[in-house]
């Protein structure tokens, strides 16, 4: 019996693995269809307008037309839009991370008057849609003189609820044993130092998650930047710039494809490098 098993095992293992490889091959095919629009966009961004119309299905361009990128970058102002987007995104990520970390920390570790109410109000606003708050946000920004400026856009974006980020920090700080804080206090650290040199470094995984999630949300945001840049086209972000591009030059499709690649590439790059934190962060949010 053992003899027979020893002889047949290699072949049967191969046969047993075969369906899995077939399944994987099928899924790879599906995934190729899934990412096709991106491949098509990259391909279109390197063709000339004529070739894009005639050979729409051919993914490999005859000659690489880099001028599309030059046109999108200079004439369509995507260089400027990209800088705007980077500035808005980076500052928003910093503000959101710091404010959610401090808020989550205090709520998780201290009892104070109104802490329960505070948490309750936060949870009640977990899913406020931008469409609901946009009119007062614009009006209050006008009154504060912040409309039509990158600064106002940044404040409005970082003032969005971000309740899930606060809750992520809240959950994480709650389960850190209190001995760590005690040790810091015995070593003579005050409130501020305990937080910034002991607690915040411990929360590195949460910070990474919140930073990446905020990065992607802000980079991709559209409604708020659209409304904030109505009368000042030079403060558009890439997503708004893309929309305006379509309105202005409906014929320059290859230029638009190049602009699309410029706008999407950075965020995809960030995702590819940091995807572990990203996936874990989302997973953590569902499990708790």
């Amino acid at each position, binding site marked *: 019996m053992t003899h027979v098993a020893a002889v047949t095992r290699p072949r049967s293992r191969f046969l047993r693995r075969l369906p899995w490889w077939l399944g994987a091959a099928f*899924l790879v095919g599906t995934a190729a269809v899934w*990412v096709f629009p991106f491949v098509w966009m990259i391909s279109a961004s390197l063709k000339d307008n004529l070739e894009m119309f005639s050979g729409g299905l051919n993914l490999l361009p005859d000659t690489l037309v880099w001028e599309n990128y030059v046109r999108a970058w200079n004439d369509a102002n995507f260089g400027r839009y990209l800088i705007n987007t980077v500035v808005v995104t980076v500052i928003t990520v910093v503000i959101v991370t710091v404010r959610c970390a401090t*808020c989550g920390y205090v709520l998780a570790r201290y009892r104070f008057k109104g802490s329960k109410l505070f948490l309750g109000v936060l949870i009640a606003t977990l899913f406020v849609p931008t*469409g609901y*708050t946009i009119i007062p946000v614009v009006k209050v920004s006008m009154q504060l003189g912040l409309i039509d400026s990158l600064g106002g856009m940044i404040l409005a974006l970082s003032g969005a609820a971000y309740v899930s980020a606060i809750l992520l920090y809240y959950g994480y700080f*709650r389960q850190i044993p209190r001995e760590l804080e005690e040790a810091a206090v015995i070593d003579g650290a005050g409130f501020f130092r305990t937080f910034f040199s002991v607690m915040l470094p411990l929360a590195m995984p949460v910070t990474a998650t919140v930073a990446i999630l905020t990065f992607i949300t802000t980079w991709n945001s559209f409604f708020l930047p659209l409304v904030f840049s109505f009368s000042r086209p030079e403060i558009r972000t890439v997503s708004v710039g893309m929309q305006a591009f379509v309105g202005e030059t409906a014929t320059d499709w290859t230029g638009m494809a190049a602009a*699309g690649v410029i706008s999407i590439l950075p965020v*995809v790059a960030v995702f590819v490098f940091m995807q572990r934190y990203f996936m874990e962060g989302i997973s953590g949010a*569902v*499990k708790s």
Partner: protein
Amino acid sequence: MSIRSVQLTRRESRNAKNARRASTVDEQMVAPERGWKRTTWIWLFLLPTIILYGIYTIYPIIASYWYSLVEWNGFDSEQRFVGIANYQAVFADPFFWNSFRITLLFMLLVVPARVLLSLLMAMVLNSPKLPLVGVLRSAFFIPVVTTTAIIGVVMRFVLDPASGPVNGMLQLFGLEGVDFLGDQKTALPVAAALYVWKFFGITMIYWLAALQTIPRDIYEAARIDGANVRQTFLHITLPLMKPFLIIITVLTIEETFHNFDLMYTLTGGGPYFNTEIIEIYIYRWAFAASIPQLGHASAAAVFFGLLVAVFGAIQLWAVYASRRMRRANP
């Protein structure tokens, strides 16, 4: 090891974990500072959130109610109080009810596809024997991280009846070209399909996280007991996923209310208002009209906010219910 005993050990470890959690939270710690100094620090730490969240989230929620009661074009400072006239106007507007219907219809089209198809895909991608799992997960996830507004524009090209590659493909097979986004019948389903494509990955990750809460040894025990794939799914996976099914469904419903970006860039609400969701209706009255009517738009926004709030309440209830479910029946 039987399923029963696995469940027991899991429950014990959960109880121990809960007990540990309770002790770290409830017997509060030796705080770094005491008295007024501590209170000052606490409020200092809350200050950025109180200011930003107060101005840009809490105030707008309240102000919307006030705006919905005035007649106001947004330019001059004059706001004329008109009571519930805006609501009457909104409710009498067939275009508002059209956008309300479109919003709900869109939800009905999108949610089952996102929740159930992504569950199937997650179950496949959760299997330890499948090769290339990491690559596949990333491929299905990529649309999630890309900019929705840009996807909308790019998809207009991809689906263009004259020169888009999809119609090119159809013609290659001798089929007639379809104006996917210009046709009143196809616009909404096509937009819904694109939305599912765009956000499928995130629901799939939710499901993967949920599936990973099932210990592998339960499956092994079932396999040793001779259960087939169908039995394993019906008697192990499905019951254990029930609490997550509630949470993920409600999360997905909430998310479908935020699709201004895609709809606005893809169709702008057309053709003939056939994809005009409430957010675009609000935008049209508040920002796109030559004479903005903020009162009218705000009344629509308040109604929209209430709709979302109802689902938010269901959401909270669902989280509690699923927690109880998981505790009672791990």
